[in-house]
């Protein structure tokens, strides 16, 4: 179980793995995630289900090497097994025919929007997808998304692909063009989601964001992932990960993401030594 049956390097730091997990593939819905424990001594980390195939019994995960546990995950080759894999977790995206939906992905969030884009289009929405990254090499899933979107807009911070600028610039332009937008779904780094919410709020456009706080069990037990939404405490693992972006306290979220940063560095050094500087 949990065997990695395919592994592709998307760029220097981002990998796509297809995992044999029929019980998860069978129950998975867009917007849900899994907890991955690559080896017995690793952390439990939440990763979004970027795609699933019920017939083949597989799920696809995109991950970026950001710390010790993702480094350990990367050390497992195709054919190897992940020690523990739990899912599907979280409340699925609410998929219905809204009319026109703008789906925004930034960084690894680009891969995470794929199932939602596919499902929103399939149910009849006009889906405009906007993706952005720092540069061309970090852009992922462009082909896949262009197939399932009605329109795909690309931005890079340095202009090496698509428009030079941010995804929020495209969002502003779509709004300025007078097009009626019924829903915005934004998934990516916290600053990106926050800015998208600031852009849509004055226009009263409902904006859903997918939050990524620290999680442990991811089944509602530990409360590490508590976020403030509309002045109430919510657990992102079971109440989310998607929330009404106009209600989210982003400052609180940013503060709660940082407490272990220095220790994460130590853990990464430890893992790099173990893996022989790979």
């Amino acid at each position, binding site marked *: 179980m949990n065997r990695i049956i395919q592994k592709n390097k998307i760029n220097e730091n981002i990998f796509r793995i297809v995992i044999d997990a029929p*019980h*998860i593939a069978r*129950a998975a819905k867009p917007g849900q995630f899994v907890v991955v*424990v690559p080896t017995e*001594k*690793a*952390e*439990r980390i939440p990763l979004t289900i970027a795609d699933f195939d019920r017939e083949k019994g597989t799920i696809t995960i995109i991950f970026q090497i950001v710390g*010790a*546990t993702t480094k*350990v995950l990367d050390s497992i080759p195709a054919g190897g097994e992940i*020690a*523990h*894999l*739990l*899912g*599907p*977790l979280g409340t699925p995206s609410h998929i219905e025919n809204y009319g026109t939906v703008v789906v925004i992905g930034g960084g690894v969030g680009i891969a995470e929007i794929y199932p939602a884009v596919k499902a929103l289009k399939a149910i009849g929405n006009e889906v405009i997808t906007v993706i952005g990254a720092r540069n061309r090499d970090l852009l992922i899933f462009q082909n896949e998304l262009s197939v399932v979107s009605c329109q795909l807009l690309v931005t890079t911070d340095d202009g090496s692909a698509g428009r030079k600028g941010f995804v929020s610039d495209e969002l502003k332009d779509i709004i300025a063009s007078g097009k009626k937008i019924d829903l915005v779904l934004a998934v990516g780094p916290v600053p990106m989601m926050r800015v998208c919410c600031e852009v849509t709020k004055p226009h009263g456009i409902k904006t859903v964001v997918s939050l990524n706080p620290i999680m*442990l*069990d991811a*089944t*509602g*037990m*530990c*409360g*590490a992932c*508590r976020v*403030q939404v509309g002045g109430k*405490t919510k657990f992102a693992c*079971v109440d989310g990960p998607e929330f009404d972006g106009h209600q989210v306290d982003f400052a*609180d979220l940013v*503060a*709660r993401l*940082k*407490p*272990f940063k220095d*220790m*994460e560095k*130590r*853990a990464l*050094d*430890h*893992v790099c030594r173990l893996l022989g500087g790979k």
Partner: protein
Amino acid sequence: MAEKKIRLHMAERSVEERVKDFNEVPQGYTPEQAIEEAKRCIQCKNPLCIKGCPVEVNIPVFIKLVAEGKFAEAAEKIKETNALPAICGRVCPQEEQCEKECILGKRGESIAIGNLERFVADWARKKPSPAGHKATLLSQRERVAIVGSGPAGLTCAGDLARMGYQVTIFESLHVTGGVLTYGIPEFRLPKAIVNLEIEYVKSLGVEIKTDMLVGNVYTIQELLKEYKAVFIGSGAGLPKFMNIPGENLDGVYSANEYLFRINMMKAWQFPEYLTPIKIGKRVAVVGGGNVAMDSARVSLRMGAEEVYIFYRRTQEEMPARIEEIKRAIEEGIIFKILTLPVKYHANASGWVSEAECRQMELGEPDASGRRRPVEIPNSDFRIQIDTVVVAIGNLPNPLIPQNTPALKTEKWGGVIITEEGLTSIPGVYAGGDIVRGAATVISAMGDGKRAAKAIAALLD
């Protein structure tokens, strides 16, 4: 011979030694001590102790066997009704159950049933019996699914397996044992012992599937298609917070998160184990139960210099076991009683740095019979701390009720059951903290046992 009124106490490691590591504090009886203590039992014709035991261990018989030095037979006798004796011998509140009923307690100290159970289980563990443990597998009867591998689920599974049913446990976490593993620290319940008792349950033919979150992976209704009955023992996994300002600051943990990082993810062995935890020099634990005592004593062992317990009533009203309170005090935990935190303040980098507390006094008794804490006006004071652990209790884990509309629950989230443990769905039983809210290991085991009986009666 004059009757001995005082029980034999187990040797304990010195405070100086034990606060430096996660090894157990009490050392257990020697065989000679066990026999001596067991001989105090007067073998009542009408033993009250059994009635005090939620899983009805035949206490006088096993104690008589200990007195005769027949330890293996004593272990077999206990295991007839209790699959987890080394665990129960350590964490049951015997003083409120079997030992409370003991007739010796009327004119002296009751017999140390918990210590004896612990001795017998440990003795048997070190001397694996040649053939005894393999259960005689009856003709394979119907399949039963159990949700959660904590004390309720393990007991229900063990009892059903012994009756010949094919039992599968679905555990959501990556390690088995539920609260026995993630909640209770190593120095109070060594994980090697938990694992061995789980291995015993497996040896009865029980299959355990980890990383399986029932509700999300399979619904209860889907399980009912494959299994003749389902027992839900998914525990009290929803931490309560006080909802006061500053509770989301960095450095403020729920007891679940704190203990999960340390016990389950072994953050005390960081970075060999990759899960981090940050504990400062001055830790405040809020609450007065066993989980609060565990969190406080864990903090000492993780290197904190001063550890406070904030409790809004007095030591007398604390729900923790007396021996846990005693050990916490011995180890230097500072009890701030009649103290209610009302706000946490942060330093410049957003880390918790101060607790603002209100002084309380005791008023009239409330519904629980305990005197109600009342705030004293203008009594606020501040204490410098850099870590807070909120240990004010848990509510039933809501995931399964949310995913199972037909499952009736109380307003506070507890699954509603009949006296036999049956829920509002035919064939589906429940027990332990998902029904009671946060209670004890042994009451969860009692629930598991009762449900096993009811399931067997249903399927017969």
